[in-house]
């Protein structure tokens, strides 16, 4: 019990500055100080903050505060997507469907969009239908295999 309490206190002490740093970055972004926002969010993203990973991906995608870089945007969306973030999942799914920052791969697109749709995203569900219409039977087999593999690792739907 004592160990649990100590862990909670330490966790609380660690989380408060992260929240404050995230807020500082968001406030800087709001004010149009993109370089400041990028530096702060990138640091938090490296530390594993999922919201910051999505934010950094957005800045790379738009080229705000940093040179536009779709590969880097895809990298951060995919990292956050693997952690279950719905917005990251629908964006990386869209990237794969269009070949933005990653080689075009409709099977992976369908896979990520399916997970985002399961997380409640209508946008992802609609986009997935468009992607599915352009998929070959082989693509669909591979996409379903990807989904099956993730189900094996995590039987319940992966939300975010």
């Amino acid at each position, binding site marked *: 019990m004592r160990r649990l309490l100590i862990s909670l206190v330490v966790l609380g002490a660690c989380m408060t500055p992260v929240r404050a740093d995230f807020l500082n970055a968001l406030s800087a972004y709001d004010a149009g100080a993109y370089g400041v926002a990028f530096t702060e969010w990138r640091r938090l993203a490296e530390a594993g903050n999922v*919201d910051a990973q999505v934010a950094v991906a957005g800045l790379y995608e*738009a080229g705000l505060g940093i040179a536009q870089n779709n590969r880097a945007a895809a990298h951060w969306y995919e990292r956050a997507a693997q952690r279950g973030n719905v*917005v990251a999942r*629908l964006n990386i799914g869209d990237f794969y469907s269009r070949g933005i920052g990653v080689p075009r791969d409709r099977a992976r697109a369908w896979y990520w969009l399916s997970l985002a749709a399961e997380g409640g995203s209508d946008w992802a569900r609609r986009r997935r239908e468009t992607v599915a219409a352009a998929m070959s039977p082989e693509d669909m087999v591979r996409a379903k295999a990807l989904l099956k593999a993730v189900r094996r690792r995590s039987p319940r739907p992966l939300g975010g």
Partner: protein
Amino acid sequence: MGQAYGKSGLWVAKTYAGWKRYSKVAYQSATHGNRFVQNYANPQGSRYGRFEKAGKMPAGAYLVKDSFTVTKAGKIGVGPLFVMRKMKAGFNAASGDWKYAMVMPNGAFFGETNGKNSKNMKFCIDCHITVAEDQDSMMFLPENLRK
């Protein structure tokens, strides 16, 4: 823009483009990071069109700004969607009963007043509160740009 904001899944992000626009053209807003913005309100928020004479807005009123950025290289990109929704009296005294939210161009939103990560929207309140008494926390656009 609608395609970008629509990724958020928020009703307002999918709907606002059909509401009345109160700006003649996009204008640069110093209070929104010098982005180019346009102003919209839903039918419940139509009183916004009276600008300084609008008085207190009714619960259910939405005021929305979509935005775009122009980089130094001249590239145009979608900016955030800024949302204010008037709530019932007692919702949040500090915000004048407005709920604030900001939708990122990739569909992410990182908080809303009195909702998830409410503190993340405090900077909206801190800025709008400067006109709380006289203008119910609403900022108005330059007169020559009003529709």
